[in-house]
């Protein structure tokens, strides 16, 4: 019930912030209407980081505690992170064409490392399908998830470390936390969209985690069924012998 309420709140928040971003906030003096794309773009990028961070942390906890609930959390983070990172890339492309004149540029470190991050976690999800054994799958996936997470800080700081098309951080830079480069109405809308998307993220994470737990229970039931069938087969062969 609480999760359902969270879902309704998230839906209302995302709808309200979309209306504000599209209809209330004025067009930017230099970027025009294209700056409206920034709100879901930045929120999606941050939630991609957060999701993959959860996957890496859950992977570490699985390797330490050997509790499959952490693996369920890890796969939830990876799947939802892939979705939000894909949204961030799409939003960035739609913004880049009118502002930079190109949808994409491979020489840009932020764009290329983000594409790599997406590829790494799509690979993580595919890699999980290589084995049916839940414990072996969790261990292998945890290692891939932790190694792939090395790309998260590289993506984030790429705009500071190397020169490219992508601008440096608007807010999340140590010297800009209380002195953002953009006007406050834009920053406030950005934070509002970030909050709304984070609510949606929390709701989706809970539902995806529930699905992962149900899948694990199903696998366990199938395994027990096979064991019982095998035991039954042995007993029958002993009776007929």
């Amino acid at each position, binding site marked *: 019930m609480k999760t359902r309420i969270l879902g309704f709140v998230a839906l209302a928040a995302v709808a309200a912030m979309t209306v504000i971003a599209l209809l209330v906030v004025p067009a930017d003096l230099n970027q025009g209407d294209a700056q409206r794309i920034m709100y879901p*773009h930045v929120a999606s990028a941050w939630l991609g980081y957060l999701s993959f961070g959860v996957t890496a942390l859950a992977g570490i906890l699985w390797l330490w505690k050997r509790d499959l609930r952490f693996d369920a959390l890890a796969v939830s983070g990876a799947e939802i992170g892939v979705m939000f990172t894909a*949204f961030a890339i799409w939003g960035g492309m*739609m913004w880049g064409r*009118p502002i930079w004149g190109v949808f994409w540029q491979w020489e840009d470190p932020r764009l290329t490392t983000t594409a790599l991050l997406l590829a790494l976690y799509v690979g993580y999800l595919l890699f999980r399908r290589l084995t049916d054994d839940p414990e072996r799958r969790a261990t292998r996936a945890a290692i891939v998830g932790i190694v792939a997470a090395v790309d998260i800080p590289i993506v984030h700081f790429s705009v500071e470390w190397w020169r490219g098309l992508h601008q440096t951080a608007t807010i999340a830079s140590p010297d800009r936390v209380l002195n953002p480069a953009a006007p406050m109405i834009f920053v406030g809308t950005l934070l509002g969209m970030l909050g709304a998307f984070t609510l949606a993220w929390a709701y989706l994470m809970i539902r995806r985690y529930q699905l992962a737990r149900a899948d694990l229970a199903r696998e366990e039931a199938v395994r027990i069924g096979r064991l019982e069938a095998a035991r039954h087969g042995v007993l029958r062969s002993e009776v007929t012998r």
Partner: protein
Amino acid sequence: MSDAGFVVAAYAVIMGGLGLYTVTLWRRLAAARRGLDRDDEAR
């Protein structure tokens, strides 16, 4: 395409994708729970 076209394309895919993923997740979860119930009945 005008700036507004890019804005519409961005929001349509992101919000539409978010909605589509949510609905798909509900269906996957419902199917998984039905499967578990069937396993319980079979045992």
